[in-house]
């Protein structure tokens, strides 16, 4: 348990992806079965433990210490799990000779009934030190929140076993904690586990940006083009009555879209874009789609107002036949025939865009016919469906981003290589009547600039600081002084969580406008006019 607790503590404070991977790989290497598999399940959210309510934790702790002292403590720390882990009275006489392993803790928690749950938890907290107590409380209150996605954990497994992450993703949903056969395979002591379960995830094919690719060297006749829809990429897979909707990283998101899953009445695997609306009438905007995202349960009202559908891109499997090795053109024909058999309110075909040359396609890309199109996709007609992001067969050619000129307001120190640099910037635009303008923050960006530009902004921040709050500096920004940043972003949505009322998607710094007077930066009205 202590090693797991230590891993959590390190992961939560380690900002870099590589650092997190290294910590997980080393943990998988150092820790034996079944603990490492249970830790993995805890991180990926696949560990089933009956949840304990915060009220019960408070109850347990109030039986053990003065409520006034607990109140002072909780006020100071601000996090219930952490406060309880720290103030819980040490009971050395109740400590077992051998500290409990993660497997011991999980077994006890899983076997606890509703009525003896509090007693079991209290016993576990008595048996553990501070770090382990924190980890136990995080396990029972659900949600580790350590900044590690299931995808990153799978990447760590891939690094650990020196295999491609696609292999892990493909197996994943057929495996269960503590993943003994998976670790045995990754360590080379057993063969690769058989794909036993039905409707497994098939690793998704991704594209590379057109970027600097010289399109003139490519023959337009070799490529099909289609719109790049700005929804979420999904895979709908059904096999022998098992229906699964996966995100592009292989997370099972079926639970959030029961309306769509109900309509998945086939034996095949479709690659497509999840959108909301009725494809025969209207496609909802990204803001509409957001109403359906990140929800554990979804009300009937929500399902009726924002019905989910799939705009189909590709067909990977049909019945027992694997189509992935076929060329795109052939798969496309099969897809067209297949989609025609599906419920038209839940599935439609992503139309191909015909074009004669790159100039014509560029013109189409710049003026797409629908607001939820974010560019075009280019797919080689002869490309097989490959896992991962191969270079060449598929390109994404995005719509040009929106830009706005904003003023730097706050700067925060970065992490790792950037820990001595002010590298995270909050910027704002003008609001208020003429003569009484003030800046309202509209977003935060921490990339898009070169190392040299970072040094320049850092110097500017240090020279123009007016206040400090921990790692954050407030920078001089008024009508006469201020650094104007050109911000590029992908879209704008209304937000009740931000003072400005808008939230940017994917903001980054596209240019430093040392030349531009701060008073000439944009006003909030400019942004409001861009709302989706």
């Amino acid at each position, binding site marked *: 348990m202590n090693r797991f607790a230590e891993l959590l503590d390190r992961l939560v404070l380690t900002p870099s992806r590589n650092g997190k991977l290294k910590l997980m790989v080393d943990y998988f290497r150092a820790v034996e079965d079944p603990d490492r598999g249970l830790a993995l399940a805890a991180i990926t959210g696949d560990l089933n433990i009956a949840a304990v309510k915060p009220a019960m934790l408070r109850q347990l702790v109030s039986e053990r210490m003065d409520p006034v002292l607990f109140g*002072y403590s909780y006020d100071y720390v601000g996090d219930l799990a952490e406060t309880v882990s720290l103030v819980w009275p040490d009971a050395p006489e109740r400590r077992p000779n051998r500290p409990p392993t993660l497997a011991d803790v999980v077994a006890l928690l899983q076997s606890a009934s509703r009525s003896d749950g509090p007693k079991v938890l209290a016993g576990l907290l008595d048996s553990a030190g501070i770090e382990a107590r924190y980890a136990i409380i995080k396990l029972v209150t659900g949600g580790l929140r350590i900044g590690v996605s299931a995808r990153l954990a799978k990447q760590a497994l891939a690094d650990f076993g020196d295999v491609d992450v696609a292999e892990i993703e493909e197996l994943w949903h057929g495996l269960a904690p503590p993943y003994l056969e998976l670790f045995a395979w990754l360590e080379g002591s057993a063969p690769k586990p058989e794909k036993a379960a039905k409707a497994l995830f098939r690793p998704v094919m991704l594209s590379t940006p057109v970027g600097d690719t010289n399109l003139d060297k490519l023959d337009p006749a070799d490529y099909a083009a289609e719109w790049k829809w700005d929804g979420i990429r999904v895979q709908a897979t059904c096999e022998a009555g098992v229906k699964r909707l996966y995100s592009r990283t292989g997370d099972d998101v079926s639970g959030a879209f029961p309306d769509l899953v109900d309509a998945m009445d086939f034996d095949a695997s479709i690659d497509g874009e999840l959108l909301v609306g009725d494809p025969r009438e209207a496609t909802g905007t990204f803001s509409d789609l957001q109403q359906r995202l990140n929800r554990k349960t979804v009300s009937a009202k929500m399902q009726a107002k924002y019905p989910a559908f799939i705009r189909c891109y590709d067909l990977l499997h049909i019945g027992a036949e694997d189509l992935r090795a076929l060329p795109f053109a052939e798969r496309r024909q099969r897809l067209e025939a297949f989609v025609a058999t599906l419920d038209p309110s839940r599935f439609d075909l992503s139309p191909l865009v015909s074009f004669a040359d790159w100039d014509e396609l560029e013109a189409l890309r710049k003026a797409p016919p629908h607001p939820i199109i974010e560019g075009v996709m280019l797919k080689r007609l002869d490309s097989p469906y490959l896992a991962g992001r191969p270079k060449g067969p598929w390109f994404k050619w995005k719509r040009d981003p929106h830009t706005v000129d904003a003023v730097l307001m706050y700067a925060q*120190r970065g992490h790792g290589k950037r820990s001595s640099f002010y590298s995270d910037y909050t910027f704002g635009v003008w609001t208020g009547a003429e003569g009484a303008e003030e800046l309202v923050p509209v977003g935060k960006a921490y990339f898009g600039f070169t190392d040299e530009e970072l040094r320049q902004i850092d110097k500017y921040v240090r020279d123009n600081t007016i206040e400090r709050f921990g790692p954050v500096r407030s920078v001089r920004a008024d009508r006469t002084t201020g650094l104007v940043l050109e911000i590029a972003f992908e879209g704008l949505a209304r937000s009740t969580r931000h003072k400005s009322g808008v939230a940017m998607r994917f903001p980054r710094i596209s240019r430093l406008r040392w030349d531009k007077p701060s008073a000439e930066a944009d006003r909030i009205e400019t942004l409001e006019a861009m709302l989706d």
Partner: protein
Amino acid sequence: MRARDLLHPRPEGLYCPPGDFYIDPVRPVGRALITHGHSDHARSGHAHVLATRQTLDIMALRYGEDFAGTTQTAVIGEIIDIGGVKVSFHPAGHVLGSAQIAVEHGGVRIVASGDYKRRADPTCASFETIQCDVFITEATFGLPVFRHPDAGHEVEKLMKSAQQFPERAHLVGAYALGKAQRVMRLLRDNGYDRPIYIHGALVKLSDYYQNQGIALGELLPATVDRSGKENFAGAIVVGPPSAFADRWARRFPDPVSAFASGWMRIRQRAKQRGVELPLIISDHSDWDELTETITETGASEVWVTHGREEALVRWCELQGIAARPLHLVGYEDEGD
């Protein structure tokens, strides 16, 4: 005599009217008794200073030889008479030279502990419990959430991380007096025998510790002029916490920022400061040590100063010990 007539707070600091002296005054006074060398307790400009030899040496290193008009060395355990008040210095276990000051007059004994800790620390003499009527305790970590782990374990975490990330430099923020030397000594006691790189602000004090017989091993300046950036890969570098937020830190390859402090017990504190590797190493007492010490002194009254006074006052009340916060101004928790 009432305790409050023997010692009470004034804007300058804690004042003893019968002896006409102050303990750890924050403004220049005629006669100052100093518990230890941290700058919020030991200030320059007093006419006369009474402190342990090591505290006087440390003040001279920090402020220059002329930091006070005249000085007098307090020998640990020896009673000094100041205007009829019996004064004695006793080890506080906080940093090298740190002492509690016992003040006795008219049948009342008050112990002003200054900052103190109870854990073993190879860089200074251990705390001694002095029986008293009134105990003046610090409360820097005076909340039940502060429970310091074993410092050796924290240093193991640091060494493990340095092994795990051999391509990165490990920057350990540690207060220049006491904490820095303790971290270095803990590393040595844990078998770390590579050179430790130190920031310039640590040089004088670390040399002084070594001269006082506290071996810290090979210490090298953390400068880049002679060695390339890559030479700091896998190295442990110790410096004052402020330096790591500064441009100074740019000489190190992809640094892991560590911070040795009791505050690191609270995750959010570590997060806010951008600390990747918190090392919970404190030179102050944690909650359990504070409450045990109060009990051990046998004091019937406790005065609580600098820190989270209200929780410790509450605890005393629950134990039936009279307690009140002593509102002294000017003390910060200097970087612990």
